[in-house]
């Protein structure tokens, strides 16, 4: 085995030995890191589920115009003209009251109910679809159609989709912000545990330097310590996440069912699990590196 690999193997063995030499302290530190990591990971899983749900929803909202009954043909024509001159209009469909009643009857599955009605109570309607999901169209359209005598009521159907998208965007940003803050927390925690280890081992560092150890030789076991802590914390965080999904899965499914939704928590793929653990390991190593550089520098200056 070449010298470089041997030095790394030695450093890794030493790091594991140091971690195992204080089992309780190490476990507490690793678990606190794992819990910290599992929070943004859990939020990301929730957001992923929401994203899938949003992708299945119509990307455009719609606006429904309910017309006055007994509207003159001239007013109807004027309205049709006004509608087709609206900005950002992707589509407009007229549903006559007769067609609406037929649809209702079909949905109810009981033709006798419609026959018993003395008069068709449904109004004529227009369903307008904007070219993109943007509430500015809705307000513009409202303003332009407000003067039309034929319109009784305007109903905006796109708001809730837009609200859901806005909530998703907010959740995404919150998750990113939380992930950044907690990543800093991981760097700080591993940095602090490494610093404590370093202070405990200052005599060893001093002797090692006197007999020819390079800074790299001294740093290496501490960097591996940070890496191993991070990797273990990442693995445990993943287990916490998977357990959480398993526990919450039936409850999320039953709530989703009440809203006629297919939303469900999904287990993230193995590739993501490995990337997550790798990132956690790197954060641990970064914390250790900062602590080692700082402590060695202070020690050298003294």
């Amino acid at each position, binding site marked *: *085995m070449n010298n470089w690999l041997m030095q790394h193997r030695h450093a890794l063995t030493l790091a594991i030995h140091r971690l195992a030499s204080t089992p309780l302290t190490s476990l507490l530190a690793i678990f606190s890191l794992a819990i910290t990591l599992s929070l943004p990971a859990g939020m990301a899983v929730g957001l992923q589920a929401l994203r899938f749900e949003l992708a299945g929803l119509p990307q455009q909202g719609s606006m429904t115009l309910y017309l006055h009954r007994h509207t003159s043909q001239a007013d109807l024509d004027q309205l049709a003209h006004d509608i087709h001159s609206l900005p950002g209009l992707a589509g407009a469909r007229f549903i006559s009251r007769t067609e609406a009643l037929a649809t209702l009857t079909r949905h109810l599955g009981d033709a006798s109910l419609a026959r018993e009605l003395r008069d068709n109570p449904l109004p004529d309607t227009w369903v307008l679809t904007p070219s993109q999901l943007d509430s500015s169209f809705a307000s513009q359209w409202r303003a332009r159609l407000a003067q039309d005598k034929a319109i009784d009521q305007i109903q905006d159907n796109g708001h809730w989709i837009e609200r859901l998208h806005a909530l998703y965007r907010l959740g995404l940003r919150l998750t990113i912000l939380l992930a950044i803050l907690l990543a800093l927390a991981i760097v700080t925690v591993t940095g602090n545990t490494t610093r404590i280890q370093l202070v405990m081992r200052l005599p060893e560092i001093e002797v090692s330097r006197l007999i020819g150890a390079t800074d790299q030789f001294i740093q290496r076991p501490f960097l591996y310590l940070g890496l191993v802590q991070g990797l273990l914390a990442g693995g445990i965080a993943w287990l916490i996440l998977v357990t959480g999904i398993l526990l919450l899965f039936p409850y999320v499914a039953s709530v989703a069912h009440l809203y006629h939704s297919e939303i469900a928590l999904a287990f993230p793929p193995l590739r993501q699990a490995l990337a997550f653990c790798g990132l956690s390991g790197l954060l641990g190593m970064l914390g250790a590196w900062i602590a080692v550089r700082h402590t060695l520098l202070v020690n050298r200056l003294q």
Partner: protein
Amino acid sequence: MIRLEEISKRYPGGHEALTDISLEISAGELVYLTGHSGAGKSTLLKLIAAIERPSTGALWFHEQNISRIQRRSIPWLRRNFGLIFQDHKLLFDRNAIHNVLLPLEIAGFSRHDAFARARAALDKVGLLPRERALPVTLSGGEQQLLCIARAIATHPPLLLADEPTGNLDSEATASIMRIFREFNRTGTTVIVSSHDPAAILPGTGRVIQLDHGRVLP
């Protein structure tokens, strides 16, 4: 092997530990640095080992001016030296053999070679039967022997021993000085500092006497 050219060392505060020292030590020599406390023996050894830098002058190890050596090169330079300290500087959480293994790990020996060399070094100083003993269970003399074993484990060309017999009785002192003599016979350059003239084995090496930071003629 080592050449000092008008070396002076002045500490912050103005104390001058060494003044205009010029001397040369050849490969394979056994040199005794003597003088009372504060004569500058330890400072001279620290300068040679690049633990401290001279205030003025030049210090050559082979053809390298180590008074101007870059900080990152110092570890590589120190691997040429076996350092023995009066206070031993042993690691008390490691047993004897693991103390001796430290310089071998730093030098990058394989595990198998490192253990073989560490055992050989312990054997040379008579500590092999106590290879698993923690330093705290060893006597002062044995701790010093362990420090010597650690210093010789990598077979360095130069041994620097700073007051190695400072706290030892006469029997242990004589035993340790004989060990240095034996290493010197195998070609290792040895520089030993001692304030005790009785520690010097007569006729075995050159004596350099220091007084108030100057070499006495």
